[in-house]
């Protein structure tokens, strides 16, 4: 009789080792983030937190940041859902080229994107819009556009993966049951991709909320009505007001945590069920 290749107990301990490794990995990530947050409180110094942030300027930055991030992520979803669906379902020649082109903004640095946006508005049709419709460069709409440009590609990528996972056969069946293409999308594909749409929305919001490079390139870095929280942090830091920068960082962490958590719970019925 031949010996078994491996003792059953040895196999079990190997399985456990994987669990340990997985737990260690997430622990490292959490400890690292906690360490970053904790370090920030050291930078805060002796001034009280409220003194650092409870100013009209900071309040303005908070509202602008939230409004811009919310606006950019909502628009990104509105554009991203149909665009990602088209990328997922349409069979056109050289589809892979279009598919890849959509990814290019992800690889480009936000500052580079900002430069391209400014350049666009200083020539041709962009200039016409700038002069006759609405000002984008060094203006609030520019912040929205900058954030949208950075976020949109990411949103489309996340959504396309979700639509790819919905079998087209289910849409076919919906159509044999009387749905038009739009109804099949609305009643079958979208509900099945629902979780991914919500995730894409939350991630887009978070990414837009922290966006700095494109925003600062398009709208400039100056205290006042075009100052988002990331810009505020940069301005404080570059004028050596480290504790004030730390205060704004702490505020950003708090707001980001609360907003992302709220969005996640609100948009995920499964999570809501889990909580209740």
């Amino acid at each position, binding site marked *: 009789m031949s010996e078994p290749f491996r003792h059953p107990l040895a196999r079990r301990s190997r399985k456990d080792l994987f669990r340990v490794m997985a737990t260690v990995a997430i622990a490292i990530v959490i400890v690292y983030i906690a360490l970053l947050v904790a370090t920030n409180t050291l930078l805060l110094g002796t001034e009280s937190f409220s003194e650092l942030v409870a100013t009209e300027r900071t309040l303005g930055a908070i509202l602008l940041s939230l409004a811009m991030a919310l606006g950019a992520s909502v628009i990104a979803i509105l554009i991203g859902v149909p665009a990602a669906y088209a990328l997922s379902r349409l069979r056109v020649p050289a589809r892979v080229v279009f598919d890849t082109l959509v990814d290019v903004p992800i690889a480009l640095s936000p500052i580079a994107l900002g430069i391209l946006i400014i350049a666009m508005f200083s020539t041709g049709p962009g200039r016409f819009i700038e002069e006759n419709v609405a000002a984008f460069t060094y203006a609030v709409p520019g912040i929205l556009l900058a954030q949208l440009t950075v976020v949109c590609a990411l949103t489309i990528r996340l959504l396309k993966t979700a639509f790819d996972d919905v079998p087209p*056969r289910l849409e*076919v069946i919906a159509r*044999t*049951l*009387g749905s*038009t293409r739009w109804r099949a999308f609305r009643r079958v594909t979208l509900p099945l991709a629902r979780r991914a749409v919500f995730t894409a929305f939350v991630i887009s919001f978070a990414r837009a909320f922290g966006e700095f490079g494109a925003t600062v390139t398009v709208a400039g870095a100056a205290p006042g009505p075009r100052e988002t929280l990331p810009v505020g942090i940069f301005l404080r830091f570059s004028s050596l007001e480290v504790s004030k920068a730390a205060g704004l960082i702490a505020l950003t962490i708090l707001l980001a945590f609360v907003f992302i958590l709220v969005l996640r719970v609100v948009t995920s019925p499964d999570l809501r069920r889990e909580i209740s």
Partner: protein
Amino acid sequence: MIELQNLSVRFGLFHLHEVMTSIESGEYFVVTGPSGSGKTVLIETLIGLNTHYRGRVLLDGVTMRGVPVEARSIAYVPQDYGIFPHLSVGGNLLYGVRERGLRREDVAERLDELLDLLDLRAIVTRTKVTGLSAGEQQKVAIGRALLSNPAVLALDEPLAFLDGAVRRELMLQLKRINTELGVTIVHATRDLDEALALGKRVAVLVAGRMHQVARPEAGRLHPADATVARWMAGRNVFPAVVQNADNDAGMATVTCGEAELVGSFSGIRLSSEMAVLIGFRPQDAFLVAGGTAPTKGTNTLDATVTALVHHGSTALVVLDVPKMQATVEVAIPRASAREVGLAEGAATRLGLPRDLAWVLPRD
């Protein structure tokens, strides 16, 4: 009525050639043939998924070219059922009702009828479809397809993933659906027995060509040509030469190797010295117990068992038949194989009913 007129479809290397047939309203029409023969392409063209075809597809005399899937009144159930995972059982069943602009009251009676026909009452209130068995999913899919009263029900391998009792139950239910609801059924399957059991007419599609459309009699089909015969009989197709033929009775005596066999034919005229083929399905032949006189109307030949494979409820027996100079496969009930104590190397006799031995023109 569905009419397919010179329907040709080309997909890369695959080619569906000039399919020409018509399916009567209320008919149970089965398309059968080996995997990759074009059954799914045919079904998909019918439901409107595949718009790149030549020829014509008519539904009740109206061309379907340019008519979108949702406007065809052809319900469709694919091999993997396509249950909507985000809807309840009821939500799945009622999906088409809203989409077709009907109200629930409009379909209440039909729903009731379908719940009975498909035996769905026990699961209709389930809020999740995840726990449904394959058979239950298939029934929900069929119920869903039928609820909004389509003219045609297109089924692609509806029984392929089911087995045993569930498969038999669903076969009976499909037959009842066809007769009691009067819906035209177009059913694609690679299982010949399933096709012969269910189809009022059976079309045999091999490598993109429709070789035969015939009405099975008592679950049997006489192949129209050698291609169909090879698909139906596997290796049991052998060259033979006609000795004499009775063209009125459709019976011929042929020489196969050194054996003299009597077989049946139809749709052709045979004369002596003609080179033909003789073939039969493994399950249509049997083994004659030692010492028993052969039944009248049966060819009987001495044989030796060279291999024996038990496959489910049947025993596949490979025989060496010296007189035919051939290896023959016979499928008999497993219990019978045990009863006669069949074993490899045993001498036996092959029984081949004359009416089930086909004499065919050579290709």
